[in-house]
């Protein structure tokens, strides 16, 4: 059985109220979902809360999965909506990308994390705008193909690519200025 059919069968079982199937689904996808959510959420606790919201929503609305999209796309779509509900994210800008310039100087959060020995990259990622963090979360942390990430966010593939590159450029700038400051 191909993984895709497997996920669809699991979602059907979840829709019938099979909690074992929900556990299987969680074991298969939680690392990726959690990776994505931990890039969106400000801290690990919030990411766990959104993951819980996501699995609750899956448990209650698995019957609405029609099978027209891939199961992973659907799951990430549910996670994305739950994240928006809890974080009240600013809606991502339209594909016509306007340039965002995050403040390159290290803020109190970075300094605290750096003092506590946290990774400067992770701290810098948190300072990126939401739609940049979302692209990094889906493609680099959750490890989804760019095409699928584009489907989940609802933008063209090229937009996801340009968000990734913009995000990396912004990060490089932030990290460089941090090294200069130190």
């Amino acid at each position: 059985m191909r993984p895709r059919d497997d996920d669809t069968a699991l979602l059907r079982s979840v829709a019938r109220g099979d909690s074992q199937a929900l556990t299987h689904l969680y074991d298969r996808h939680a690392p990726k979902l959690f990776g994505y959510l931990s890039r969106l959420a400000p801290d690990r606790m919030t990411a766990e809360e959104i993951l819980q919201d996501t699995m609750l929503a899956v448990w209650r609305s698995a019957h609405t999965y029609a099978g027209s999209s891939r199961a992973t796309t659907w799951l990430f779509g549910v996670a994305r909506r739950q994240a928006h509900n809890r974080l009240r994210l600013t809606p991502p800008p339209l594909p016509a990308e306007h340039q965002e310039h995050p403040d390159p100087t290290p803020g109190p959060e970075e300094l605290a994390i750096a003092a506590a020995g946290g990774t400067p990259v992770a701290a810098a990622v948190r300072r990126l705008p939401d739609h940049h963090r979302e692209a990094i979360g889906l493609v680099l942390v959750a490890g989804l193909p760019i095409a699928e990430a584009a489907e989940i966010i609802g933008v063209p593939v090229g937009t996801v690519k340009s968000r990734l590159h913009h995000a990396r450029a912004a990060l490089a700038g932030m990290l460089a200025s941090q090294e200069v400051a130190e």
Partner: protein
Amino acid sequence: MRDFLPEYAAGSLDPENKAQVEAHLPHCPTCRADLAAWQALTSNEVPPADLISQVLIRSALTPVTPTQRRRVFTLLAKELRLVRPSLLAASAIVLGIGVLLTTAQADGLTLIAPIVAAVGVGAVAGPHRDPAYELIATTPTSPRLIILARLTLIFGYDLTLALAATALPARPLITTWLGPMALLSALTLLLAVLAGTEVAIGAALLLWSLRVLAGSAFAHAAGLPALIRATWATNPTTLTAALALAAAAAIAAGREPLRRPRATHLA
């Protein structure tokens, strides 16, 4: 080539392009540096292990917020429990008699369906005779919504019965009773809300008796009987008037304070 590097770093690149990247990397320091930058952004997050049991507990403890459609259905189902079964049975029996009385000369359904529906609407709509009235007044559901729900139930029930009767061999025409049924029911509803069930049903009986007389004993008379016959017809005017009366009743039902005689010693 550099377009593939984010997916290569994340391990999601398809095998064909992956082989291409792997062949290219040893010869290209720029791409190797680029790849390292992407790899710095990947990470392995370990999700909590016992999350599903928490989800199942939360699911059991928190109620599902009902959708709009389910709320309407719930309201109708709850209101149906407040309608006396005898009212539904009596409506069906009287309508049945009307169908049986239908002859070549006179259409029993045409004469009986409007008054049955009107009496039914009057019986469920008046606050004065409603056993659950005081309880309902304390719920967050607005009295307007309650009135409309009951109107839907009773009128829908009688309408269904009457429509079923038109499928019988005698085949009474829908147009002979639909307009009068809607108009008389809406008028009764408004009177029931304003003045109570007794007044409303009395008025409905009186009006409908006049209509029956105008159609039988005075079937060929001009003047007032002709006007009465023209009023009780199925046409856009009567249906619009029925809607307007029902809307007026719904608005009147929401007025504060609610009128209920002898609710206090002053009344």
